[in-house]
């Protein structure tokens, strides 16, 4: 049902929209403000899109005791309406191909269109994972080539592609750490994570069967060395670290940190979420890390798909190599490729088959396209863009109300604190984020990292133009100007989106997580 003229005038929110017109993030037509209807609500018995192939063999029926009495209530709908339904839903999404998406820690860089084409080649897309390796040589060669390139980038030679996402790679890292220690008869109980860590780090530690011990942050935004020294003992299995960390700060004490961690016999784990800052400049292996996970969907540009798929390969040093997952792709002496299952100390497998191969195809294509020089340039420009955006925000006075958490050069991302804005304008970081939607920008990551009050974590990536960064900075400045005059505008934002602020508390209190049918 579309909104009538009468409703428009009766509806105070839409009046507000009229009062504060902006280029909207998603909405283009009134039709997109229609009451949301699910595909189940468009279903009518007897409609269909599927026509079954002819039954060319004798009919066979299952024994009654196994047969389902009533078919699942899936939609009944013909192809044209399925297509329209999902196309309409797509128009209610903001996406990277449509605009700036500076979501800190997520590395929303451009997704080259070539990658979809090569991933869809039938030799990739219709290749069964249990095909005899002799008949899957192209796929194994691709995986092996990717392993070699990733190993070079990390400075750690042994790469397992199997983990399905960053958090899965973290779990692989914790499990190989456990296997490494226990193989030497060394049973440890704790893993250290800085208080700036991604939430996946402590969550992974718990799932790996270890106790989380938090390490503090020093005045420069790096690891508090004294705190680390105090907490590093022979019960510590590992320190999980992101460098540059989630504050966008490169920890200049990394050599000292590695020394302390290795001094107590623990492993040093590199959360690769921020690898996009340092390719070709420095390598985790050279910094002293034993284990690294990559987020192929971030650094090596997969379309994020609305929340996956990704892939989270790990790379390890020689001493950890015996423990990584199996099967492992190997190159044989005759130049052919195989899957090696004969790995007696391996932790085993962490999923079915060989990993998210379709993701490997795209990331390998990306590495071929950029080359070693291009990857290095990507990191340099990611850092240049972040520092420029920070400088531009300073120039426009935005940082008066939103100061950087650490007032220094940043790496590929930086953190602002909305605390002064909240104090002086009565606007929360959330309000600013919601008002950005009316300016056609995806907001930065908000309220993370946790130790910065009213945090905004901004990661522009290298694929954005200077003009886009300027426009974003102007929008931030404009929202603050507007907020100084009338903070109510941002407090009630957004206005131009398919829906406005949603009742999240109510959704959690009385969860409706499926359609009653």
């Amino acid at each position: 049902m579309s909104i009538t003229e009468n409703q428009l005038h009766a509806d105070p929110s839409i009046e507000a929209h009229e009062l504060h017109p902006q280029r909207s993030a998603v909405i283009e037509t009134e039709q997109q403000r229609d009451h949301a209807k699910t595909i189940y609500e468009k279903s009518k018995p007897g409609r269909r899109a599927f026509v079954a192939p002819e039954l060319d063999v004798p009919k066979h029926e299952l024994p009654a005791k196994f047969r389902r009495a009533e078919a699942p209530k899936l939609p009944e709908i013909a192809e044209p309406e399925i297509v329209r339904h999902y196309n309409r839903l797509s128009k209610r999404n903001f996406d990277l191909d449509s605009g700036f998406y500076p979501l800190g820690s997520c590395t929303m860089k451009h997704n080259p269109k070539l990658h979809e084409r090569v991933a869809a080649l039938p030799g990739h897309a219709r290749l069964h994972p249990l095909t005899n390796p002799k008949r899957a040589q192209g796929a194994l060669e691709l995986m092996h080539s990717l392993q070699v390139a990733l190993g070079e980038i990390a400075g750690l030679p042994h790469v397992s592609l199997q983990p399905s996402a960053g958090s899965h790679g973290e779990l692989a890292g914790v499990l190989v750490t456990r296997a490494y220690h226990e193989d030497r008869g060394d049973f440890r109980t704790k893993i250290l994570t800085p208080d700036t860590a991604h939430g996946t780090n402590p969550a992974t530690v718990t799932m790996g069967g270890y106790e989380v011990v938090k390490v503090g942050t020093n005045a420069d935004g790096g690891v508090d060395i004294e705190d680390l020294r105090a907490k590093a003992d022979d019960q510590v299995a590992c320190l999980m670290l992101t460098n540059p960390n989630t504050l966008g700060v490169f920890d200049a004490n990394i050599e000292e940190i590695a020394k302390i961690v290795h001094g107590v016999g623990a492993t040093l784990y590199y959360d690769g979420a921020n690898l996009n800052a340092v390719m070709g400049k420095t390598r985790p292996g050279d910094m002293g890390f034993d284990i690294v996970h990559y987020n192929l969907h971030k650094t090596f540009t997969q379309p994020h798909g609305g929340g996956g798929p990704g892939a989270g390969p790990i790379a390890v040093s020689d001493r950890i190599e015996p423990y990584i997952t199996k099967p492992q792709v190997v190159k044989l002496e005759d130049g052919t490729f195989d899957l090696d299952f004969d790995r007696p100390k391996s932790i085993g497998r962490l999923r079915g088959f060989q990993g998210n191969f379709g993701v490997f195809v795209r990331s390998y294509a990306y590495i071929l396209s950029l080359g070693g020089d291009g990857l290095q340039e990507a990191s340099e420009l990611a850092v240049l863009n972040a520092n420029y955006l920070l400088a531009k925000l300073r120039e426009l006075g935005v940082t008066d109300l939103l100061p950087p958490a650490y007032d220094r050069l940043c790496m590929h991302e930086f953190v602002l604190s909305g605390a002064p804005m909240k104090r002086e304008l009565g606007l929360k970081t959330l309000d600013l984020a919601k008002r950005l939607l009316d300016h056609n920008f995806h907001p930065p990551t908000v309220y993370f990292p946790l130790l910065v009050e009213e945090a905004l974590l901004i990661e522009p990536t290298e694929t954005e133009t200077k003009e886009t960064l300027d426009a974003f900075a102007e929008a931030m400045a404009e929202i603050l100007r507007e907020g100084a005059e009338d903070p109510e505008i941002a407090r009630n934002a957004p206005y131009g989106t398919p829906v406005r602020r949603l009742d999240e508390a109510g959704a959690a209190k009385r969860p409706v997580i499926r359609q009653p049918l």
Partner: protein
Amino acid sequence: MSRYTSATETDRQEMLAAIGVESIDDLFADVPEGVRLGRPLDIAPGKPEQEVFARLRDLAAKNVSAEDEISFLGAGMYDHYVPALIDSILSRSEFLTPYTPYQPEISQGGLQVMFEYQTAISELTGLPVSNASVYEGPSAVAAAGWLAHTHTKKTKFLVSESLHPHSLETLATTSAGWGTTIEMLPVVNGLTQLDEVVGDDVAAIFVGQPNFHGAIEDIAALSQFKGSALLVVQADPLTLGVLRSPGEDGVDICVGEGQTLGNRLDFGGPSFGFFAASQALLRRMPGRIAGETTDVDGRRGFVLTLQTREQHIRREKATSNICTAQALNALAGVIYLSWLGREGLVELGELLVSRTHYARETLAAIDGVELWHDQPVVREFALKLSKNAHEVVEFCSARGVNPGFAFDDNGLLVAITEQRSKADIDRLAEVLKEALA
């Protein structure tokens, strides 16, 4: 300058001036001398798009895919037809290129897809609660193990010998630090054996439906003996139009591989895992869950909900560490289920049942072929061959027919999809007869 970045020399100079540094190198001043790479990466220089395409095309051409042979390979992933509308909808940038819907006002499309997906999985499994996807099948089984262990505080897992071996291995790997043990439940003539109530130290019982050898398990019978343990079933979702739903047979958690629902083979991934459970387990679920709500104007909308379970809020106390899952693949799943529709799901299931039984009878009539078990099957069955199964697979493959997966020296697992006609099955029989002669 790379083709994916735009900073011209002028841009760079202006930007450096605005920052107040001389060079890009100055921006990396915090990186200590001792850890700088100091040389170019040993990776070949970048190539033009057309050359990258050619390299990937050449690699793809070295693979023998289901496009090139008559394939009966299954064992967890299956060569079903993926309808064209899935390619069309998934290629829309609005679905392809955003990330997790942290800002619901501009993510209603993705959130509603999750809600519709959860509804479809709940319908298929007969369980009230579904999340928005996990990585894939075997790791979903391990995630169910973690839920069962943390929910029941118990330390023993009972695993059917006919659970998919990848699921068993993944559970064993993942649970290394939990202080849990795994005991196997024997299988006789295809079926998991359990004839008394399990001990009160058991966290969960794991069974496949159909199981790895293709047999339909009597879940209702197994359920009677679960005691205080959680019954976890790894199901093939495409069979749930014809098989009783796990929910109606007392299953607590139903997980599985979603590839059969509109996802490509892709040499094993990306696909998606589904995770459904009873109401009592709602607040222990891993991963994203979309919920329905309203906006300030009373408009219907959807949000990520029950987020206090999740790692970004709860950190070390989260129910799981999962963050990025498989949203795009789950979208393919829900489009596929809408395409099949309520009747189509059943019709496809019935077609698979008929063709699979025809194939089993036809192949079992060959000298040197015995049934691994004689239980009813839906889409896959196991045979015992008189010759080495790996050699038989090689022999047949050289003749353009991939007869299935050699899961044992004499065991062959044969999978049927709607893309394998009677003529294909008859051709397999001919080749297999030759191989065993």
